[in-house]
């Protein structure tokens, strides 16, 4: 910086500071904000997830995936009974900026 301004002075030209390049960054959301977000901003039945502050669209489940995941949940319930609660496609909060958000398509308990 000092050398740059020196040369500029010597040449009697304005000092052109090499400006650092700026890149836009996404506004990230927290778990709390996503719930606030539910206050009529996003459609209730939308399948979304909060991953590291980004709100991600979850695609529609295909028939194979749906059948497989419900088999898994049935199997786990059968095997574990009362020993564990099987949460089927319900949110888990990993940290302040990551949560697998709910969806309501009739398969939740």
């Amino acid at each position, binding site marked *: 910086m000092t050398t740059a301004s020196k040369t500029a002075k010597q040449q009697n030209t304005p000092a052109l500071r090499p*400006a*650092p390049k700026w890149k*836009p960054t996404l*506004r990230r959301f927290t778990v709390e*904000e996503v719930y606030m977000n539910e206050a009529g*901003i996003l459609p209730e039945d*939308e399948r979304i997830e909060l991953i590291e502050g980004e709100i*991600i*669209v979850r695609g529609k489940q295909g028939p194979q995936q749906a059948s497989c995941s419900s088999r898994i949940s049935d199997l786990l319930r059968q095997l574990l009974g009362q020993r564990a609660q099987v949460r089927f496609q319900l949110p888990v909060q990993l940290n302040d900026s990551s949560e697998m958000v709910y969806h309501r398509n009739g398969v939740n308990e």
Partner: protein
Amino acid sequence: MIAELPTEVQSQRDAMRSGTLPLRLFTAKEYQRMAEVGLFGEDERVELIEGRIVQMAAKNMNHAIATKRANRCLMKLLDERAVVGVQDPILLNDYSEPEPDVVLAMPPDDRYLDHHPKPEEIFLVLEIAETSLAYDRNEKCPLFAQNGIRQFCLLNLQTRELEDYREPGPDGYRSKRTYTAEESFNLVAFPKVSIKVSELLPPLKTTYVPSKRRKQ
């Protein structure tokens, strides 16, 4: 404290950060609702660009002075003929609501009580760039062109030049001219109005001398 992640997990995380997961894009309406319910902090500077809420560059002194100068200069030259917006939102399309540094819009100002200015109501968009030059030129400029902003000016504080873009189209602006500080450019909407680039630029040296403080 945090164990090193397995390579595949790390690469998955990198993929997320580089935006390969389908982001939920927001409409201007949803974005406006978020602002209404107070989701964004008072001092948070964000704008909606193609469905993504992006954080805006911090303003430095040069940028602030150039914004003030441009505002004053345009107000003086155009008076009642245009509404000057400074860092106010404009509605480019259903998914884009940027806040350019200076916007010239159709008068009167009370027509914007129920909506932000739309492209057909906008005479000029001026962005002042120092650190955000590449972003303004490569991302914002085509976006303004695609949405029919008839004139886009980019004031380059690094080289002290003004880039004047005209004739918008889906592939960008068909006309681009660069003016040096000593040159003047005119406005598409008001061809007789000529503006000297140096009038918009921050001065190289200050002539301002603070008055001596009285001894107490």
